[in-house]
């Protein structure tokens, strides 16, 4: 079977209950157009896009409705044809408000003119590939949402030798990437070749956790002959194997310096969903207007992997999946480890919405403000080798200097510490607060 490369053991990590069986065997379902789409301008890391349409405009699918606001930003396209009903600041899944464009679909779903397929992408210059990716408005679809065209155009002096496709999907519950690998293995590989060409990377590794043997087999079987040094790597199943730095270490043995970027060790990591979107944008010329989201959790009647237009409200997704069973205590955008809890289902999907999780009251974990008992479990499981116990106590006392000295800025909020904390302390929230304040203090200086 597929695992051909020995993997390295990165520090920390936990083994949560995965609950992937809820949706893993559900083939991707196409969701019909909902009655309204709320397309946020903040779908990616960096500055939100600037709306280029106004109320009453009619738009076609694939038309740019938000232009990138600077280098680290990405274009936003109309997910279907219809009329712009509203442009207004709307809460996003992670909390802060951003401009969003509400579109009334006309039901025709007409693509805009000028979609130019390019099956012969091997003839394209590197810059052309990057341009097509940028024109497609593609940003990372695994979670953080870093604009992809920025990632695939590293500074010229940087040598990239390895492209890692991240198919770890280490978040519990989520199965969207798993389904993509099963159903679109060939296209993902072609997307990988495109990115590798843009980067001049000669080595391609697909990293998949070993609890997904079917995906490993499918990706293994689909390795194209022209790929050269390409292989599927079976990672030990452990959260957070999908985290960039940890995955790079597990696959290549290289350590990204603290505070540094993967570029510095010659590696670029792309999520498999992003890679598929790159394929679609470069080969078919179609910008990113839809994505696969896992709608799951104990409160969902029919957990499913749904291909839905960007801007589909969570309420519509839930309705498409048969509604809810019993009371819903927690609504989570994303996975249970790093996702954002929502007050209601009014928020809409974006390019980063990998999952929508609805939990009943019995599945909800409550944080308490108990004192730390110094058990040290958080220190043992922290993949960044931090001391969450000390940090949280510094931050409780609002000692931000001490927290900075103890590397709070290296925390990636993976949640391993809070997952293991027997005192149920809200450790990640302390870290978030600490990071925000340290950033603020730095800017003041």
């Amino acid at each position, binding site marked *: 079977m597929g695992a051909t490369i020995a993997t390295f053991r990165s520090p920390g990590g936990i083994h949560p209950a995965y609950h992937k069986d809820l949706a893993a065997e559900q083939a991707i379902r196409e969701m019909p157009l909902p009655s309204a789409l709320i397309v946020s301008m903040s779908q990616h890391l960096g500055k939100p896009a600037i709306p280029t349409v106004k109320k009453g405009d009619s738009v076609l699918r694939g038309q740019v409705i938000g232009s990138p606001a600077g280098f680290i930003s990405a274009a936003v396209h109309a997910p279907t044809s219809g009329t712009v009903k509203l442009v207004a600041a709307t*809460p996003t899944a992670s*909390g*802060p*408000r951003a401009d969003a464009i509400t579109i009334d679909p006309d039901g025709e779903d007409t693509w805009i003119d000028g979609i130019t397929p390019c099956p012969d992408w091997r003839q394209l210059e590197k810059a052309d590939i990057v341009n097509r990716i940028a024109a497609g408005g593609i940003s990372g679809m695994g979670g953080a949402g870093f604009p992809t065209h920025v990632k695939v155009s590293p500074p010229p002096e940087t040598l990239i030798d390895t492209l890692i496709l991240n198919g770890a999907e280490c978040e519990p519950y989520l199965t969207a990437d798993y389904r993509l690998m099963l159903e679109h293995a060939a296209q993902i590989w072609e997307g990988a070749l495109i990115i590798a060409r843009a980067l001049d990377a000669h080595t391609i590794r697909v990293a998949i956790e070993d609890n997904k043997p079917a995906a490993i087999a499918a990706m293994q079987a689909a390795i194209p002959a022209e790929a050269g040094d390409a292989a599927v790597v079976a990672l030990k199943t452990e959260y957070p194997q999908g985290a960039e730095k940890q995955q790079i270490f597990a696959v290549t043995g290289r350590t990204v310096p603290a505070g540094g970027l993967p570029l510095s060790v010659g590696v670029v990591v792309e999520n498999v969903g992003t890679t598929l979107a790159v394929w679609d944008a470069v080969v078919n010329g179609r910008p990113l207007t839809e994505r696969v989201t896992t709608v799951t959790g104990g409160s969902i009647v029919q957990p499913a992997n749904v291909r839905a237009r960007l801007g589909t409200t969570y309420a519509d997704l839930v309705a498409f999946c048969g509604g809810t069973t019993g009371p819903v205590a927690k609504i989570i955008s994303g996975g249970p480890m790093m996702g*954002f*809890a*929502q*007050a*209601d289902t009014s928020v809409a999907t974006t390019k980063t919405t990998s999952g929508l999780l609805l939990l009943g009251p019995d599945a909800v974990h*409550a*944080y308490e*403000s108990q004192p730390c008992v110094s058990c040290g479990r958080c220190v043992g499981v922290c993949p960044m080798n931090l001391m969450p116990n000390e940090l949280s106590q510094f931050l409780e006392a609002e000692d931000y200097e001490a927290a900075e000295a103890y590397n709070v800025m290296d925390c990636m909020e993976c949640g391993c510490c809070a997952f293991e904390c027997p005192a149920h302390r*809200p450790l990640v*929230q*302390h870290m*978030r*607060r600490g990071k*925000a*304040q340290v950033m603020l203090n730095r800017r003041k200086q």
Partner: protein
Amino acid sequence: MTPILATSLTIGGAGLACSGLLALAARFLSVEEDPRVEEVTNILPGANCGGCGFAGCANYAEAIIVDNAAINLCAPGGADVLKSLADMLGQTAQAAEHKVAIVLCNGDTANAPRKFEYNGVADCHAAHAIGGGDKLCSYGCLGYASCARVCPVGAIEMTGGIAKVHPDLCISCTACVKACPRQLIKMVPSARTIHVLCSSKDKGPAVKKACKVGCIGCTLCTKQVDDEQIKMEGFLAVVDYAKPLDSDAPIEKCPTHCIVRT
């Protein structure tokens, strides 16, 4: 040799030797220091509240002497300290207007509903960062007492899920102003007693949904004053504290009772 003489000689000799040593040390190791810094530090109240904008009283003292900082920045010290400083430094005292902090939100538990059940760190910044805060009103006081915790004199009380400043206890240090993630706390002249206790910039209907005592932007109050003592900033009525206002008319006319006299 008499014991007294021996004693005197021994101790005196030892003392002389030691003082010689110290004299040498003082000669070669001494550090220049402006004695006025210490004097000013002694005049300042020593609360180290940071209200003057310096880290502590000693830092402020140094700033006064070395950088010629203004001498009227110490709010807790009040007129007495200002006078002492002015006398000492030979400057004229220009008293700053006495200001107290006020929380411009009256949406307590009964008036302003929550939009979700918040579970986490009991701190306003932390709560504000999660889903935009658990209050339906995205401008109102969250009630997790971040301001009360930083108040050096315990002048802020949490009642009914919102913060209230006791004006007579407030020492004008502005620590709470900086601590509020929603910028609800303002420093206002203590002579002014009429306030619009709302900070919501939302339109009327949205405010109505989120809070029973919010400003709905009806502009009625602005018509009750003769010199724009209350004026509209968007959909929010704001008191102009520079102008004196002592009329009950706006209070009586306000349909949501968000204008109050303290």
